[in-house]
């Protein structure tokens, strides 16, 4: 009797309907999931396309070929501007009036004489000879060559007037104006002149800041996590500490900046804009992230491993350092690198401690004034010149490159050291 009821139940129309509904629910869930991923991917593609399409031209820079004579007297006077001008005027013998020559001077970067100086410094034997040198063009010429400025329309509304356009066209035709790889972008510090501005100062600043962050937050974070997870008694004090750590992880980063301003600059009197202070602030910000991820990683080590080690007479500390910690290391590393990546992309707290300053020199030490990549992006995005627009996008690409590198490293380390039991 009961057998027949069961049979009829599973073969009934109602049951078939229910079964169809179950499958439909699963199908809808899958569709929703795929849609979510598709939307996210689309957003990512739009973002990346926008950045790359705006920024890729920044990796090229218009260069002007000039035939210059390194006159001994002028070199001694360090009058490289005159040397450069003579070479430039020689290319345009038809232009003799003052206004025309001023226009020609504007074709070159205001930093071009320094390039000549650098050449002489590198090889003093060129003094007295005539050489063909390539110097950076002015950023407006650069942007014009890249097609960002119109060549038609009312002359007064154009960035380049007719005479300049004629000169640029003449040089392009004779091969004296070409675009080449923009090494300045990767080797120089910041500058008010877009063609002389580079990201290297910010990269070094970021690396120094991260160095401090890592040196402080990784050992302290791991030690704190090990103590809390493996040794500390579970009582209301440790509960209180845990709640506080979780809270700190969610505190807006600018608060950490204010804390850094008050404590490190105000109380301890550390220098402003310095990577050491940036690193300290970032370490405070990253610590809770590292502690939380390290605790999760330690928790995921099976208790049987601890028992095995204790069971043959390992001390609690030996158990942790010989067995638990190595097994938790992939997870700890992943959490650490993600924390570091967050610190690399962080801007707000650094604004509070003066790392938003305009700094031309590449920093050489932890107390030198410096800025970091995301702040550099922020400052370039604020600059009105057209050439900074593409440099902003280029800097974003470089920052993204670093982030991808770090996250890739996290995945690689996890895969390499992951153990199964």
């Amino acid at each position, binding site marked *: 009797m009961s057998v027949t009821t069961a049979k009829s139940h599973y073969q009934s129309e109602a049951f078939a309907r229910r079964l169809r509904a179950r499958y439909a629910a699963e199908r809808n869930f899958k569709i929703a999931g795929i849609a979510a991923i598709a939307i996210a991917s689309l957003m990512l593609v739009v973002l990346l396309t926008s950045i790359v399409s705006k920024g890729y031209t920044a990796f090229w820079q218009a260069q002007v070929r000039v035939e210059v004579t390194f006159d001994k007297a002028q070199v001694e006077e360090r009058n490289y501007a005159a040397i450069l001008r003579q070479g430039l005027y020689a290319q345009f013998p038809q232009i003799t009036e003052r206004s025309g020559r001023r226009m020609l001077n504007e074709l070159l970067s205001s930093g071009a004489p320094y390039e000549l100086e650098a050449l002489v410094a590198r090889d003093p034997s060129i003094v007295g000879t005539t050489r063909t040198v390539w110097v950076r063009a002015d950023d407006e010429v650069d942007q014009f060559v890249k097609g960002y400025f119109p060549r038609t329309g009312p002359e007064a509304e154009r960035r380049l007037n007719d005479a300049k356009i004629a000169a640029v066209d003449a040089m392009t035709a004779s091969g004296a104006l070409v675009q080449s790889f923009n090494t300045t972008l990767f080797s120089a510090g910041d500058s008010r002149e877009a063609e002389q501005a580079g990201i290297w100062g910010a990269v070094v600043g970021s690396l120094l800041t991260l160095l401090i962050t890592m040196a402080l937050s990784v050992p302290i974070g791991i030690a704190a996590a090990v103590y809390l997870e493996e040794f500390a008694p579970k009582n209301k004090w440790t509960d209180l500490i845990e709640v506080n750590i979780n809270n700190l992880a969610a505190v807006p980063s600018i608060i950490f900046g204010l804390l850094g301003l008050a404590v490190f600059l105000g109380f301890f009197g550390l220098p402003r804009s310095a990577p050491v202070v940036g690193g300290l602030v970032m370490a405070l910000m990253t610590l809770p992230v590292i502690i939380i991820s390290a605790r999760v990683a330690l928790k995921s080590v099976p208790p049987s491993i601890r028992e095995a080690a*204790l*069971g043959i007479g390992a001390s609690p500390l030996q158990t942790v350092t010989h067995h638990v910690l190595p097994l938790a290391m992939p997870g700890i590393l992943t959490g650490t690198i993600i924390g570091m990546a967050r610190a690399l992309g962080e801007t707000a707290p650094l604004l509070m401690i003066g790392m938003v300053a305009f700094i031309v020199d590449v920093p050489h030490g932890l107390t030198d004034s410096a800025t970091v990549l995301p702040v550099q992006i922020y400052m370039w995005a604020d600059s009105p010149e057209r050439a900074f627009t593409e440099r902003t996008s280029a800097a974003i690409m470089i920052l993204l490159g670093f982030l991808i590198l770090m996250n890739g490293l996290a995945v690689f380390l996890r895969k390499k050291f992951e153990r199964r039991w």
Partner: protein
Amino acid sequence: MNVQTHIPTSAQAGARSAPAVPNKMVARDVKVFYGAKQALKGINVDIQENKVLALIGPSGCGKSTFLRCLNRMNDTIENCRVEGLIALDGEDVYGKSIDAVQLRARVGMVFQKPNPFPKSIYDNIAYGPRIHGMATGREELDEVVQTSLQRAGLWNEVKDRLREPGTGLSGGQQQRLCIARAIAVSPEVILMDEPCSALDPIATAHIEELIDELRENFTIVIVTHNMQQAARVSQKTAFFHLGDMVECDDTEEIFTNPRDERTQGYITGRYG
């Protein structure tokens, strides 16, 4: 201090057969509390040297808790409180003269689930001797590893792959590896907490043979749910029920002529 002199004779142990063998470990009135909950209500057991003592009883009766008191593994459990006396060679293991780390080296343990370290077979065995400084130099260590594996009956199966991870072995081999790891530090007593419950019958037979051989050199306490296993491997059996030790006697006596009806009920399968 010598506790043995003033240890009262337990109510059950040795009542019918005079103890001809010296006691390796004794437990007197052992009570264990997890917070407010009492898990053991005064256990008295004598563990005789070079014999196998089987602890049987239904789930939750406190067998494992008692076993873990013998090498103070319960120390790692928060809120766990142990009262009463447990002595190893007449010395109180919860006293000042024995340190927990030292005790666990002398009283080894094999767990229910094989738990080799995720390291090579060699390192699994060599770890204990290394941290206790029992082997100086490479050759001595190699020797310890080989003897331990031989005594655990695993040498022939793994001698060509000592560098491979211990976790890659089969379940039965892993458990024998854990036994080899335990005996590598030359303990005096080996505690086994249901060592065969995760193994198939063939691997179980292997381990049981091994236990019988190990008896020559070690004192063994084994917790088991398998009554046939208790009958096969042990000389003494203690029956636990709801935190009490109901009966402890020669294994043969327990299985053929139990004095308590709860023991009778359990071994005949009426409950448990």
